[in-house]
């Protein structure tokens, strides 16, 4: 038991993994084996990058000790800006850069207001949630602009791999996930993110540029949300102004289910991804097993509470076990 708790402390996402395996087994049985069938897996893996990328960004930011509730709106705003730019004749790549620039700007504003005026990021980004959503609808003029057919969306949507199991978006997702994981665990900046979230005073006292670390985290979070939205829009073919509504809460839930602490300093990218996968599995599994789909929200909410309580309890237990010393 002690050893398990020790492992848990170092790798909090393992609890999420256990839950995932259990749920997959349950759904596989209840859906008469369809759940893990090729067609269904294709579906799940095709949709996962979109919520997964947001979860990665939100996880990173939460580890630094801040929240971003505007991700659902940025999810819609980035592709909308890109599409509007393209209807005005801007070519594909510059339009995409413009979209990302919008994300960076929003992340910057989120960070700047939070840090300069010392407001909880929860509030700042809540306001931004409304503002960005409104901007998305306004610039669309009420009608989603058409995406021209000659843009290389295949870069993100076509199926590749053995049995055509994955979309290109999954590969992008994998790359981003690996880079983000490396950033957090293997770079000095990642060390600083964890420190700032874990104990801000200590981080400041040891010379870490706290404000800069948080600003970068805010901006990264927004960029990832925008990237995710862009992928969804390419997949669906229309930049609708209403996509992404409610995703911010799902992203926070995913991060938390994957072991990220609400107070900061604890969490991993893998955990956030596992949380997103778990939510996707539940959504899909409920449809397959013909359970009333309205239980989905209940399931996600229950799981979030359960995960937070369980993680807190496990952490408290693990802390009480002191490491052995010879002194």
């Amino acid at each position, binding site marked *: 038991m002690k050893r398990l708790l020790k492992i848990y402390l170092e790798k909090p996402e393992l609890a999420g993994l256990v839950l995932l395996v259990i749920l997959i087994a349950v759904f596989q049985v209840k859906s008469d084996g369809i759940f893990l069938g090729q067609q269904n897996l294709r579906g799940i893996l095709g949709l996962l990058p979109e919520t997964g990328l947001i979860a990665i960004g939100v996880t990173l930011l939460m580890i630094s000790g801040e929240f971003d509730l505007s991700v659902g709106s940025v999810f819609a705003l980035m592709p909308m800006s890109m599409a509007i730019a393209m209807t005005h004749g801007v070519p594909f790549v510059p339009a995409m850069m413009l979209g990302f620039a919008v994300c960076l700007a929003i992340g910057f504003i989120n960070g700047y207001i939070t840090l300069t005026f010392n407001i909880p990021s929860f509030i700042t980004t809540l306001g931004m949630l409304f503002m960005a959503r409104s901007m998305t609808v306004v610039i669309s003029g009420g009608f989603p602009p058409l995406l021209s057919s000659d843009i290389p969306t295949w870069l993100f949507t076509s199926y590749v791999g053995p049995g055509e199991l994955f979309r290109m978006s999954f590969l992008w997702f994998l790359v981003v996930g690996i880079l983000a994981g490396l950033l957090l665990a293997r770079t000095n900046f990642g060390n600083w993110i964890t420190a700032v979230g874990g104990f801000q005073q200590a981080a400041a006292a040891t010379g870490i540029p706290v404000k800069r670390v948080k600003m970068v985290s805010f901006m990264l979070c927004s960029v990832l949300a925008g990237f995710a939205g862009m992928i969804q829009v390419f997949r669906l073919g*229309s930049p609708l102004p209403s996509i992404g509504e409610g995703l911010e809460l799902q992203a926070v839930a995913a991060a938390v289910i994957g072991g990220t602490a609400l107070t900061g300093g604890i969490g991993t990218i893998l955990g956030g991804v596992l949380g997103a996968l778990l939510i996707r599995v539940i959504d899909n599994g409920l*449809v397959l097993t013909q359970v009333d789909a309205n239980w989905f929200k209940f399931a996600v909410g229950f799981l979030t509470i359960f995960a937070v309580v369980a993680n807190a309890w496990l952490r408290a237990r693990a802390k009480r076990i002191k490491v052995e010393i010879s002194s």
Partner: protein
Amino acid sequence: MTNKISSIALAAAMGLATLTGAQAADPLKIVFTHHSSASNTFWQAVKKGFDDACARIQADCQMVFTQTEGSVEQQQANMQAALARKPDGLITSIVDDNAFDQTIADARAQGVVVIAANVDDSQGAAGNARQAFIGQNFIPAGHSLGAAIAKHFPESGPIKVLVGVSAPGQNWSEQRAQGVINFMEDYKKAHPDRDVSWDKIDSGTDLATTADRVGAYLSAHPDTTAYFDTGFWCASVARVLKDRGVEPGKVLMGGFDLVPEVLQQMKAGYVQALVDQQPYEQGFMPVMEIYLAKTVGLAPADINTGNAIVTPDQVDSVMKLSSEGLR
């Protein structure tokens, strides 16, 4: 013409069903996906038609609602998950011209019978691989509604009309609004001596939002002659008018769909005309067409479920049927 086909098809289906009823080898698997959440009462009537038809042919049926009202990406995810169960037939609304094209094409390739219900691709069969459309033709319906309300226009004075587009960007709402506006343009041309004008706003897809937004507009423009909603949410506007002490009929109102809330307001005199699209039929007929396609190979055919206008003198009889979910 289409109505005749529909009655023949219905008779044939009923006949076949009773003949072969108890002998159904493998029950047909039919899935219905659409863009609405469980809080939209219109769809309860559709579900009743769907469930009744399925009971008659003893099929294994599932209707999947979305979490967020009007969410295209959730509907697409549901559709993909449902298709993994390898159903015999898929019935779906197509509120976006692009988002479902690929998934439906894949379904057809797998031999699934696909029928569009309630909302069609704006380019019909040219825009999507669905085999038939069963539902209301929106533009003519909007036009008819315009005509029905115009009968109540005042003899003299300026005519100021507000059109509430409930879901900007979605086919059904845009086209119904367009139908109304087409009528207003015709009316203007026919009455060059009158001052005719109209406004369009994004009125929302729930009672509270529509009440808020249209209420605000009416405060700013108290001389509005008539309000057209592209759904049934004018029911909440009626309440707002009542609260303000405006007598019924002072501001004319017209809408779509015969849900109990709006029928009540018609009885109270606030709503002068409603367009019925016969939701029960939209749930019932596609099932029968799938049955016929799978048993005798009859190609599915379009059915216009009508743009019949319901006026206050018919309310009582209609209300009874509406509360039973039959209209």
